[in-house]
């Protein structure tokens, strides 16, 4: 049973759905953060899979950029979470509702 492109699409869809549900449903900021990474990497997986399938290196190059941006995002995001924790003593996003109208 050969591993075709459909398999990769299915796996990346499952991963993205898991990440999206994690972002929407979990309340722990770090978990949400990890779910965001999951969605990013599902997108990366799909890029690599299609690059290989189409024999075009553009997708693989784009993955490097995504990983770089994701690393920077993690640095900023974790810093924010630390700052929120220092003031709120909690990383539950239910406690962070200063913008409620």
């Amino acid at each position: 049973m050969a591993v075709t492109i459909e398999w990769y699409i299915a796996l990346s869809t499952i991963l993205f759905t898991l990440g999206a549900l994690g972002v929407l449903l979990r309340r722990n900021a770090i978990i949400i953060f990890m779910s965001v990474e999951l969605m990013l990497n599902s997108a990366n997986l799909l890029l690599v899979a299609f690059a290989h399938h189409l024999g075009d290196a553009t997708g693989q190059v784009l993955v490097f950029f995504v990983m770089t941006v994701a690393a920077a995002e993690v640095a900023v995001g974790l810093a924010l979470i630390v700052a929120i924790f220092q003031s709120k003593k909690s990383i539950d996003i239910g406690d962070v509702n200063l913008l409620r109208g």
Partner: protein
Amino acid sequence: MNLFGLAPLLLILPLIGVFFNTVVGRRLVAADAPSGEKWSGWFATAMSGSAFIVAVLIFFSLPTVDYHAQTVVLWDWFNMPSTDFHVQWAMYFDTLSATMLLVVTGVGSLIHIYAIGYMHGDKDFARFFTYLNLFLFFMLILVTGNSYLMLFVGWEGVGLCSFLLIGFWYDKPNGVGILNGDAARKAFVANRVGDFAMIMAMSLTFWVFKTLEFEGVIETALHMFEEGGKAAPISFGMFTAEFQVVLSAITVLFLIGATGKSAQIPLFIWLPDAMAGPTPVSALIHAATMVTSGIYLITRSNVLFEIVRETGFQMAGIISVPDLVAVVGACTAVYAGLIAFTQFDVKKVLAYSTVSQLGFMIAAVGMGAYVAGMFHLITHAFFKALLFMGSGSIIHGMEHGHHHLHDHGHGGHGDDHHDDHHDDHHEDDFDPQDMRTMGGLWKKMPVTFGVYVIGSLALAGIFPFAGFWSKDEILAHAQVNEFAIFSFINIMLTIGAFCTAFYMTRQIKMVFFGEPRHEAAVHASESNRLMTRPLVFLAVLSVFGGFLNTPNFSEPEGYGSDYASEEKYEESGDHSETEAILAAGGSKTTFTLALEHWLEHSIQSFELTEEGVVHMPHTPIVLQYNVAVTSSIIAIGAILIAWFLVFRGYPMKPEDDDPLQAAPVIGTVWAFFQGLPLDSLYMNGWVKRVFLPLGEISNLIDWDFWHNFVHERLIRDTFVTSADFFSKVLDPLGVDGAVNGVGKSLRNFANGLRSTQTGNVGNYALGLFLGVAAVIAYFVFAA
């Protein structure tokens, strides 16, 4: 020698005087009375005297331009092409206005000098001379104006000055209990009636003749007269009127104007009260110049009056306008003469005498004797100014005597306060103008006495004084003309002449003869030379003024009645033929009829023939010996009767009755006239019966209808109601509701949106996903 370019100086000089005394003179007098009075008074006199010199130059310039009327245009005034209404601010010089100029400025200058002495010590010295110069300014406009409108400017101006000067001592009561301010108002109101008629007359004149200039009016009037019945009737829009009817209306309105200014029945009531003003004013304005404006007006309009006479139109079928003028004058002459009998105030006698003499002049111009009227105007200016200033001198002397007495009283009773108080009270009662307090003044005031007698003789018409010639000329006119109404006028004027001699004798006897009847008269003294010099000068004029127009003493050769009607008199400038005849036939004396020849160039005499209007030479006045003798007998008789029969009872005490009053029948008449019948008729008939009830009605209209109903109910209440509607209904519900409603609805909408802003990151993330999903769905399915 054409000096008409100097004419504007006639107006400029008095104006300079006005400004000097308003601005500088007042301060000079306030700073240092003796020197300030000299500056103020003499400056005004210099202006008046310079105007006199200009008048003399103009007088002598007229022969050099062949007596043609000269117009000096100063500037344009009205210019309305749509109605063809053009009026220039222009001066008009012909022999008539030159004559008036000389009288006004000449007598005016003498009175200025006199006034410096008379007004000495008055706190408003400079104000007096301001008014006097202002009067001169307006009087010169009046006599030199080239149109009826210019004349009217002067006419109103002198009325204003008259008002200001009658009320000059507005804070002092007058002798007879009427306040000076009231007297001034009375004069003003009475004159307004005449002025109203003047405005009507001018409007009609413009409507008919399309111009207000004398020359144009006369020319057009003669032309229309020439056309006679062929001329189209004058249209007034809704109706038309015949030429002679309209002209009668114009002339009758001029007559009413003249009755106001020249104090004739029925409007003369203001003039006697006008004597409340300072005596120089009485002499200048209310005797010599202003009150003669009516005579000047009628003389100026002589062509209009003569046309009315020629057309024979009679108002209401009874009387023609010129005859009415003569009748009004003659009645006034007698009526005022009778009132003059009953007066005790030295100036009031002269005031009624003035009214009476103005009646003579008006009667003269009404009879067509314009030259005689002007002649009497001139001589009257001389002797009436003289008499008024003489009376001023008497009053001054009496006041002086009274002050002397008062000072003496203080010295004698210095310790006795009760007596002092009594003296003060007595001073308030003393009237220096009451002839009953005088007597025996001839010894105290010899100069005044002398000139006063001369003036009285001139006024009474005693040969050879000025009044004799002028009054005789009027009486002669009344006698020689064939019209029936002239006999009536002749009789009235003869009675008037009798009255004149009678009341003047009474006055002289009361003032100058007998024993002094008051301590003040005992101590009276002669006035200073500033006051007596002009008197002497005027006395000379009163003696010799009559020779201005001495009549021919016999009928000249070649001057038959046929000459007058046949000789054509083509151009008004070409008088050589007539003058040759006059020179040949008339007396060789240059004085003979000098004024007649002089005024001939201004006063046209004409007749309507088949060839049209023909200018005629004046019929020369021949001395009517019967008239002269009759009037002399009457005048001398009146003097003798008064002196030896009626007033032999003088001197009398102030509380005594007048001998006339004591007489059985005459006393009733005397009392009637002393009650000033026309004045009381105005008061009881007009003021109390009509004017005050009308006042009530007008008050009713003004207060109850106009104020309470219109203002309070209609205007104010409507306003308040509508304002309430706006402030209590429209504003809170409408305007506020709209503004607040917008705000409220926005707020509610925003409150609804608020609930979506939860602050929950999860919600925002969900929104983000849904949004992304929607975008993707759009691209996948729609694009």
